[in-house]
């Protein structure tokens, strides 16, 4: 009898708890996963844009631009994401509302989704800057020289030469960043955005089946990672086409 009380959930009970329809909490978990992925995608995209600008600023910008980019990447990479999220989340929404009030508009409610994307994108941008800067520097010297010798404008050179040929060097770092983005969405649970981790905690707190739900969420995150790895492998194979494989070159 004591043994039965040790494991209160039998298998069928576990399945009812995890089922996607209302008596179970599976639907909430899946909705949380979708929210997490939305934020991760948005933040990763925003990080890529900031990263491209930052990398170009760091490599080709004026001394002032380079120093500003350096300050941005150093501070963002040295302060914990959780602190940055709190600072940007509260300070950012507060600042926007104050500006709106000063300009004579109504206060607006910034949705958790947008705030999450902007905050995580700002953090991702700093890492993406470093990844892309390294990748651009890894492009063989002669390719850029040749492009200049042909008289390409900077934009054309970026589109035709720099971005395509840096891709194989940047992909491992960017793939890492994508995985970090999916995992960093969990931090938004602390500011109360209902993504996968917070949904899980609510489900666990209501049903008292903490272990089961956290395990289930872990499996969802792990599946996301493994699936991403599969896709990244494909993309990398495509981007490195025609290049010697790493093993042969090493």
């Amino acid at each position, binding site marked *: 009898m004591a043994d039965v009380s040790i494991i209160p959930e039998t298998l069928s009970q576990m399945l009812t708890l995890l089922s996607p329809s209302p008596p179970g909490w599976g639907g909430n978990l899946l909705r949380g996963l979708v929210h997490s992925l939305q934020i991760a995608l948005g933040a990763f995209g925003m990080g890529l844009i900031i990263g491209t600008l930052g990398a170009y600023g760091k490599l080709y910008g004026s001394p002032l631009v380079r120093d500003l980019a350096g300050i941005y990447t150093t501070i963002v990479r040295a302060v914990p994401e959780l602190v940055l999220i709190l600072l940007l989340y509260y300070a950012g929404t507060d600042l926007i509302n104050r500006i709106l009030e000063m300009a004579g508009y109504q206060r607006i409610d910034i949705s958790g989704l947008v705030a999450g994307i902007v905050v995580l994108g700002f953090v991702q941008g700093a890492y993406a800057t470093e990844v892309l800067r390294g990748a651009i520097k890894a492009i063989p010297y002669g390719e850029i020289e040749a492009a200049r010798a042909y008289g390409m404008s900077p934009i054309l050179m970026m589109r035709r030469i720099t971005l395509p040929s840096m891709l194989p060097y940047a992909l491992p770092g960017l793939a890492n960043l994508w995985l970090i983005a999916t995992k960093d969405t969990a931090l938004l649970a602390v500011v109360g955005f209902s993504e996968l981790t917070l949904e899980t905690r609510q489900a666990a707190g209501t049903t008292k089946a903490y272990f089961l739900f956290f395990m289930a969420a*872990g499996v969802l*995150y792990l599946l996301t990672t493994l699936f991403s790895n599969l896709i990244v492998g494909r993309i990398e194979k495509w981007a490195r086409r025609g290049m010697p494989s790493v093993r042969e070159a090493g």
Partner: protein
Amino acid sequence: MSNLTVDTKIEIPLETFPIHKDADPDRPREWMQPHRIVLILIGLALVASAIFFLRWDWLPNYGGLILQGLWRTIWILCVTVFLGFLLAVPLGLAQAAGPAILAVPARWFCTIIRGTPLLLQLWLLYYGLGSLFPQYPWIRGSELWPYLRQAWPYAVLALTLSYAGYEGEVMRGAFAGVPKGQLEAARAFGMRRFTILRRIWLPQAIHRALPTLAGEAVLQLKSTPLVATITVVDLYSVASRIRQDTFITYEPLLLLAAGYLIITGIIVFLFRRLERLVPSRLG
């Protein structure tokens, strides 16, 4: 002679052609450029205005608590980095050279740790295991129970496992990267396998991994505020408490960010010293 001058005239513009400004070795590196002085002045002005215009009167009341939180953060950081590294060495070794029966579980461990958020791992251990333990009478009766009821063992365990997972992957690469000739030479000297590991393989692998270790230590520092979510009183949770007590939003957070910046600086500085201690020419 004239031939030579012509040569140099042609070569100079090619050599100094700035592909990337920060890779150009000929560019003079001056610290005190005019724009830097302006930037520093702006920075000082920002700090000064933060000191004068924001509220800092709560600071003396919470001084002791802040120091306590700082100490707890640094303690957790040091303990988990040390324990995590001890765990990472066998994990890396198993993946780099171990038999499949050890390598496959080690790889799975690293994949699972690296594939799920730390916050989730922390909550799984604290809430999940913490809610399972009291159901077992023999655990409640054991010597460890007073510790298992507190939050910090779970925090240390989660952070240690996380660091070991990330670092195990790094150590795998470091072990695999040590040149084969070194190990063959050691074997030719008749060293036993454990002696090879202790004298040749491990030191060189650690040296290879040292720059990454510094980065991972900073990442670990940035993970420590998560323990505040399971009621461990670290620097971050002290700041949250000040915010709840005094209804001041930004000042504690700014102080917190500055504190983490300083600790990061110290970590980077220490690892740079450590890297300089090790001779860098290896075969």
